[in-house]
């Protein structure tokens, strides 16, 4: 059982008998008032988004789901195809089900596919993925101010801010939970 203080982005809970994932989460506490947990949740079956505000006393059942390790094969239109690495069975998820995950998926990557009553409904990426910088503005020599950063585009098309010394063709590590740059990866 989860309590309201467990709520965070990415948590999967049962709500009115359907599995939901928290896609946006805001802790609010006006004045000396009570704690409120304002959530945007996506219904993992229907894809619909609902807004709900929970209180400290609310409790939730974890979503009744199983995870399987699968390999990302290829994208076809808005269908993302995966293969079960044990049974070689193939399944697919739609782009809307992949959500932000599309920013970090590259072919042959191993991911966890979430199943609800044997139906694929969601994807969990590894916490860290290494991606190649496809486009980067040049490093202006001498720009070593550590607070500075510049925007680059990764091989997946994802745009991210990185320190000025990162150059095109380099591999960098991204935290998929925050979408932020972590470090340069030396091969």
């Amino acid at each position, binding site marked *: 059982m989860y309590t309201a*203080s467990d709520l965070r982005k990415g948590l999967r809970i049962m709500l009115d008998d359907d599995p939901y994932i928290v896609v946006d*989460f*805001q*802790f*609010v*506490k*006006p*004045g*000396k*008032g*009570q*704690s*409120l947990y*304002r959530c945007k949740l996506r219904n993992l079956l229907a894809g619909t988004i609902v807004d709900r*505000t929970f209180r*400290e*006393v609310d409790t939730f059942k974890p979503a009744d789901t199983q995870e399987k390790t699968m390999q990302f094969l290829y994208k076809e239109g808005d269908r993302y195809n995966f293969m079960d690495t044990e049974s070689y069975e193939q399944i697919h998820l739609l782009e809307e089900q992949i959500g932000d995950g599309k920013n970090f998926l590259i072919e042959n990557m191993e991911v966890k596919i979430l199943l609800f009553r044997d139906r694929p409904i969601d994807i969990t990426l590894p916490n860290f993925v290494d991606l190649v910088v496809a486009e980067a503005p040049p490093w202006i020599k001498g720009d070593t101010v*550590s*607070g500075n*950063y510049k925007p680059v585009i990764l091989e997946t098309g994802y745009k991210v801010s990185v*320190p000025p010394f990162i150059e095109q063709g380099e591999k960098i590590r991204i935290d998929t939970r925050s979408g*932020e*740059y*972590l*470090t*340069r990866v030396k091969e």
Partner: protein
Amino acid sequence: MNSDWKLSRRKNALGSRASLIRALREFFFSRQYLEVETPHRIPAPVPEAHIDAFPSGDWFLHTSPEVCMKRMLAAGYPRLFQICRCFRRNERGDRHLPEFTLLEWYRRGIDYRDLMEECEDLFLFLAGQLRGEATLAYRGERVDLQKPWQRLSVREAFDRFAPLSVEASLREDRFDEILARDIEPMLGRGKPTFLCDYPAALGALARTKKDDGRVAERFEIYLFGLEIANGFSELRDPEEQRRRFEGDNRKRVSAGKDPFPLPEKFLESLRHLPDSAGIALGVDRLAMIFCDASAIDEVVAFTPEEL
């Protein structure tokens, strides 16, 4: 390789934060306030229904320096301020940290109206020192700090922005929810807002109005929809204060929480408390505005998750 890149990226924000805190001190020094430091670890925090203190041995980490500062006020110190770390359990969000920085100041001989004017002066001073103008910009929006700011009673705010009246909201236990959802986002737009005259039941340590016992002389400052400070005319009646503390403790127990021991020495000192007003201001949130930061994480060196 710099693994603490996030930390080094905060250099500018932490610089602005330090300038802000220096300017805050300057303001209070120029008005002959005494800067004090009171213990962070205390035997009995203010018992509030919705604020949870961290235990520290048999004692607690303070949730605000209010108890100690008001004892000093009662002992004859006329003007006090303190900038210190405070601790509140289970508070974490874009605008909350379980360990955060409060500025509190207390002044003898004034009420909440005078205190509102002092707040106007403080913000004008800060913006003048740090921005060289009488406005503040945040997230592409601008607020004009010229006096007078908007003064809006809680009743008016509910009538104007909420689907329910104050009374109905309190009756249905939806006051906080409606305040957070329908009212707060509308406040401090264009001009800062003093949301004032709270229902007496939400008065905490505030005195009720002489001509209307249903309303507490309490206000909150809002800028850009962001709650920045909570001030009031101080309650000086120890019996009334004890009843309120016991009421809050009862609410805690019925919500399945432990009650807090009562701060007896504080209650005793209220007999000697002069007419006065005091206020707590969230320094991290103020820094968010001055740094144009969307989350509190960006204006502190470390969040708990980064330790």
